[in-house]
């Protein structure tokens, strides 16, 4: 699994960070997403990545 983030679509709501702060962070500057770990390993981290994709309001996240 690989997390792909489109910062152009990100609205900086931080829903991803709330879902899993080990996978995501936000830039100090404009709040856009920073992927800390693009290749989550393990059931829990993968599940969190899926949740983040589902609730991201900007539809800025996808999985490959």
């Amino acid at each position: 699994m690989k997390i792909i983030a489109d910062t152009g679509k990100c609205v900086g709501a931080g829903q991803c960070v709330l879902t899993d702060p080990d996978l995501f962070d936000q830039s100090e500057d404009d709040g856009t997403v920073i992927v800390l770990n693009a290749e989550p390993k393990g059931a829990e981290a993968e599940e969190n990545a899926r949740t983040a994709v589902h609730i991201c309001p900007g539809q800025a996240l996808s999985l490959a």
Partner: protein
Amino acid sequence: MTDVEETTATLPLERKCPFSPPPEYEKLRAESPISRVGLPSGQTAWALTRLEDIREMLSSPHFSSDRQNPSFPMMVARQIRREDKPFRPSLIAMDPPEHSRARRDVVGEFTVKRMKALQPRIQQIVDEHIDALLAGPRPADLVQALSLPVPSLVICELLGVPYADHDFFQACSSKMLSREVTAEERMTAFERLEHYLDELVTKKEADATEDDLLGRQILKQREAGEEDHDELVGLAFLLLIAGHETTANMISLGTVTLLENPDQLAKIKADPDKTLPAIEELLRIFTIAEIATSRVATADVEIGGTLIRAGEGVVGLSNAGNHDPDGFENPDTFDIERGARHHVAFGFGVHQCLGQNLARMELQIVFDTLFKRIPGIRIAVPVDELPFKHDSSIYGLHALPVTW
């Protein structure tokens, strides 16, 4: 593709039970989930009641938030237009790309990390207000003692607005959100607050510091060589109003709901990790800013099998979406462990609430502290006698008498 033309209902529909959406939503969703409705403004619009349709509409680039568009669906009589000074829309009324730039300028102020840094100060504010509540007479009105002052103080400090003027903003804010006042009264409240903030921003421009959001925005604009006074006034206006009413109402409504559901309250008390999921569930159950998700179509678009034409208004009934059984099993049951984070109480898409993480932080600190420090707290009147805000665009409670 279906083509429903007849008007089936007139919005806003009233909540019959204070804890549930209007009962008509279920029927609408079952019979005609995308239907034509009448609005108090005399307009006709599409009402969406399914969670997925609302999410799809809000994330489509073909729906505009431009409230100056005469087809934008309005729940109250239209504001009188001002000829003297052109209206400058704030974030909620802008569309991309203008919106994207304006939001990006300020969103860094509201990141999860920034909000966490405010935690000790919010805790201090909450503790002081609970001290005062405990020292005062019983019963007490929780709205005046805690629900309103906590978010007010926090947003005033964050923005750099003198809290001493809070009675004035609160009065303006509740006038602007009331459905019972005339368009003139609403406009007067709007202009008084705008005038106040205009002067405040002027004062700050003369002496901008890094200490507050407005000061930081002024310095940032100056550095970029693009000072824009009116935009800052609009931003201050939006954040001040949004910071006053919404969280306050969720504190009151959440307190009532948790007290009415002692089994769920016990879970939070036993495990503070359950407070955040409980807050998501409370946000879902109440969806206090239900019609913030209204838009106007800018192209012909098909949503959920219905063709919505350019120029037609759409009301995403987020409270209906948040009670859609396809999104939430047994949607009318209050269950803090259901995993409700995909609700649309904060909206969805590019306009999703900027202050949502501040709201979460405030609610979390308030609930954890309130029930720990006043374990015997109870509502001082029967629940059906509580004054719920059926008369406001933002749902909530006018007062909440409590004792302990």
